[in-house]
Structure formats: C-alpha cells, structure tokens
C-alpha cells in the first residue's frame, strides 16, 4: 500500500527510564564513569587518557599515588623510600590493625603516602604522594616519619622536595601521635628551608585538617588542583558554629587563591610542565652569591 511507503520508520528504539537504568546497570563495571560535576557519561579509558579529568568540563577525579607518580615523573625514574615502614597500633584502637590490613589489600599500598626520588623534566627531585584511598589519606606515625625522612634525604642530596597532599587530616586511630606528626614534618621543612632548598606543595582534593595545617601549607610555592577542597575545619563544624550556610565555593582551590593562600591553580594536564619549569628556575645557574660569571 502507498500508505505503507510513507510510514515513518522509527530510527531509534525508545526506552523507558526503567529500561535505560537496566541497560546502564548492565554496562560492565569500570568501562563507563559518570562525571561528578557535569554528569556526562564518559568512557573510563578516555578519563584515564586525560589524567583522570573530565574531557568535557575539566572536573578532576581523585588520582591515586601510582597514577600520580607515573604522570608526574620522567619515565622509569623512581626509587621508592621506606616502603617497609608500617603502622603499629599504639593506642590499641579497636579494629585499627584489621582496617589497615583491609585497606592494604584493597589498594596494594603499604601506607597513605609513597615517598621516593625521581626526576621531572630531567631535574632530580624528592617526591611524596598521598593517596586518599588509604584511610582518607590520614597522617599517622608512618606518614609523618616517611615524609620527614624524605625531606631529610633531600637535604643530604640537595634535591628539591615536592609533596602532593590528599588527606582528611591527622589519623584518629593513632591519637596524639598523629597530632605530633604535624610538628615533626614542619620541623623537617624548617631544616629544608635553612638549607635553602625549594619545597613545592601541591594540594589536591581533599587537603584538610592536620595536613592542611602543617606541611601542605608551607610550600615556597603552593599549587592547587582545580576544585580541590582545602581547609582547616570541616564545613559542618563551621556551619554549626556560626549558624549560617557557607558559600558553595567555600574552601575550594579557587577560594584559597582569591584569599591569597595559594600561588596558583594548575590543571592536572599542565602540572608536570609547571613543576618542571619551577624546578628549572631553581636548578642553580646564575644567582646572587654564587659568584658564577654572567
């Protein structure tokens, strides 16, 4: 029939919301990821290619320590320090050893920070990278000791230090020992500063509490990733104290930049190049007091 000829063929299958949800659920785990900011459904490998950022809106997904090292250091150029330094349970805190064991298995990491030496753009450097998957990246005795030792080695070798923070703060399960790591790491940075060696702090999401109130805020240059949550007190605590709602951008990297607390906000894709430039600027050459000819 003529009528049949003009019958519109449906080009697309219409799916009900329920069917859609079912289909989405059927996508194998890990292939697709929804952007937390723009809600775009993205192919995970695409996000990986963009260093765990959203290719559409630039949202920065959390980056774990191995990925960070791989994307920051020159290839094949990393010697890890103090891998065998592990936590004990000084307060005999209920469930703490089991928790550590579980997180170790889940992440393949020994602790919440990985330290070592490598090179960026050919410049030797001591690095420390925190991983927020390990008990919120919290700082206990091991994190404090590893960072302190890394800084001490940098002083011995006369290397610059770069620390990437990602931490909820001091580790509660180690009580006052965790608190004191703030003093210990800051004291080591004092020595680094006395030795006139540069320290670059890279604040990533999240950097709060005792880590924000110690080494993360003490860089000669403080760099933050876009959108990172950075602050001392928690949002809820502040809202309860002052009894008013806080602005949406409160304690973001951009908020801190506006208030003069950090030097710059750098997209992750430009991080390595920025660090390399800064390191190059500090790599000797002509300087006052060096007596080298211009």
């Amino acid at each position, binding site marked *: 029939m003529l009528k049949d000829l003009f019958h519109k063929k449906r080009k697309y299958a219409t799916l009900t919301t329920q069917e859609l949800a079912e289909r989405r659920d059927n996508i194998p785990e890990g292939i697709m990821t929804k952007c937390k900011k723009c809600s775009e459904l993205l192919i995970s490998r695409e996000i990986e290619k963009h260093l765990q950022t959203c290719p559409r809106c630039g949202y920065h997904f959390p980056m774990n320590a191995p990925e960070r090292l791989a994307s920051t250091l020159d290839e094949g150029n990393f010697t890890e320090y103090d891998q065998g330094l592990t936590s004990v349970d000084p307060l005999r805190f209920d469930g703490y050893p089991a928790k550590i064991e579980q997180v170790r298995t889940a992440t393949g990491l020994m602790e919440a920070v990985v330290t070592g030496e490598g090179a960026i753009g050919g410049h030797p450097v001591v690095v420390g990278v925190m991983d927020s998957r390990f008990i919120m990246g919290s700082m206990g005795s091991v994190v404090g000791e590893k960072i302190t030792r890394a800084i001490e080695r940098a002083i011995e070798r006369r290397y610059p230090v770069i620390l990437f923070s990602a931490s909820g703060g001091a580790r509660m399960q180690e009580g006052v020992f965790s608190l004191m790591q703030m003093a210990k790491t800051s004291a080591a940075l004092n020595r680094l500063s006395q030795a006139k060696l540069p320290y670059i702090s890279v604040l990533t999401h999240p950097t709060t509490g005792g880590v924000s109130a110690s080494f993360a805020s003490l860089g000669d240059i403080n760099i933050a990733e876009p959108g990172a949550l950075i602050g*001392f007190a928690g949002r809820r605590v502040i809202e309860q104290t002052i009894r008013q709602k806080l602005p949406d951008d409160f304690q973001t990297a951009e908020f801190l930049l506006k208030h003069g607390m950090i030097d710059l906000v750098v997209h992750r894709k430009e991080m390595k190049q920025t660090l390399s430039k800064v390191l190059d600027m500090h790599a000797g050459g002509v300087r006052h007091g060096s007596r080298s000819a211009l």
Partner: protein
Amino acid sequence: MAADLHFEKPLTELRAKIEELRKFTEEKGIDFTDEIVKLEQKAIELEQSIYGELTPWNKVQIARHAERPTTLDYIRGIFTDFIELHGDRTFGDDPALVGGIAKLDGIPVTVVGHQKGRDTKENIFRRFGMPEPEGYRKALRLMKQAEKFGRPVICFIDTPGAYPGMAAEERGQSEAIARNLLEMAGLETPVICIVTGEGGSGGALALGVGDRIYMLEHAVYSVISPEGAAALLWKDAAQAQRAAETMKITAQDLYAFGIADGIVEEPMGGAHKDPTATVKRVQEQLVSAVRELLLQSTDELLESRYQKFKAIGRYQEVSNEPLKHNA
C-alpha cells in the same frame, strides 16, 4: 565556692551533712562530736577514692572547669612586670590568645597563651580560648621578637582548638598554625610549653613546639576533642566519655608515651581547688626549666628540639634486616 562536678556529688553531700551536724551541736547544744569525727574520716576516705581514681572523662571535666586558673591567672601569679602586647601587625588583635613580656624569677621572658573566659560574657569576648589566625600570628610575632632579644619563650596551652569559622578559614587558619610549627622548630631561644587545661588539636600544637612540654596533672592533650572523636567514630557525640578513654589523652598517657616531659601535680580535686598552690608549682617548674635551658648553646637547643619531635611516632620497619621497632 567552685561549682561541683557530677562525680564529686557524694563528697559534697557528705560535707553538707557534717556541716549540718556542726550547726546542731552549736545551736541546740546536742553533742555530735563522735559522729562528726567519724563522718570526717569517711569524707577523707571518699575524697581519696574519688580523686585518686579519676577517669579520663573526669579529667576532661576538671580541665574544662570554669574556675580553673587561666593563662592570665598564671601570668599574674608567676611573673613580675608583665606588659601585655597586642596585635599581629597585619589584621587585628585576637583576645583568645594573649602575650607579652615579663620577668620570671628576674629573667626577662616572652609569654604567650590561650585565654579562656570566666563567665559567658567574657568567654564570648575570648571566643572560649579558640584563636583565629591573627592570634597565632601575634604569638609568632612575639616569639620572633623574643628570639631577637634572646628571651626564653613560655607558652601556656589551654584551648578546645583553633576557631572553626568562615573568617578564620578566609584568613588562613591552616597556614597560621603550620607557620607556627615550622618557625617554633627553629626558634633560636629556649621554648617551654605547658598544657594547663585542654590541649585541643592543631590549635594547641600551634603553641606547642618547644624544648620542654609539661602538663598539669589533670590536663589533656588530644588530636580531636572527645566529642569530636565520638561523633566521627560512633556518629554520636554523647559517647564522648568512651572516646576520652579510647583516645589516651591524659597527662599520664602522654608522659608514658614520652611526649610530655613532666607532670605538674595539682591540689586534691584539681587546680581550681587551690589556684595559689597550683600557680606556685607551675612557677617552680618553669624557673628550673628556664635556668637549665639557658645554659645550652643555640645549636644544642635546636638539635635536641628537632630530635625530640623526630622521635615521636610508633611504627615498625620491615626490610632485609630484622624487624626494627621504634618506641
């Protein structure tokens, strides 16, 4: 008369009874002397049993007692010629943190400390002893000044924590605390810290990097308040009592951990029961520490201060060598 704490109630009631019997004896001429003597004996025993076995939570309550001596009470009682100095030279003057110059046993010193209030009105003015960044920056300014003139620095620590406010975050609460930690570690003059009441987290530590850390007998020092810990651990701030035990926050715990260098004994029942005696004991401790530290060279001082903090932490080390323990 100092307000009583809940756990002191049996003792208070017993004392009231003794007083009542005394009145009877005097007014009505009935002789209760034997009963009074017996009850007084019982009161002493009760006192021993209550104050001899204070739980961590009891200590928290004593450390927070409204009539516990504050920093300015210690300053007035211990030093002579105190001149309070104000302001951070950048933004303002923080009443939650006081400081100035004074003489300790004839030696010029710089003194800084958290300042709590006595009543609600004063506490609002003092922000309950919770400094904003200006407070820490004022402290640092005074400490750098002390360094310049070779004056020892005395830090009185008594705060629930740094103030959690919007303005405090805008002006860099984190940076202010961090800067103090870094600078105090390298201050080229003796630094003596004493936790007199609450040593609340980073806000306390920002005055706590020194050559000596003393604690009053019932003072506490912790990474987070018992209420905060309870809220995080069990989603219930009412479990603060349990958290106080779990977190190991007493002067005795910190001394056992090797973090506190000494404990200054308090009068029976706490510092507020006899402030004059407490102030005197603190004074003795400070004078002996200052005299001892003034004899050390700057290099010695800084090296041992660094090593003191470097040694804090518990971990194990697995390598090719046998297991090493750091205790």
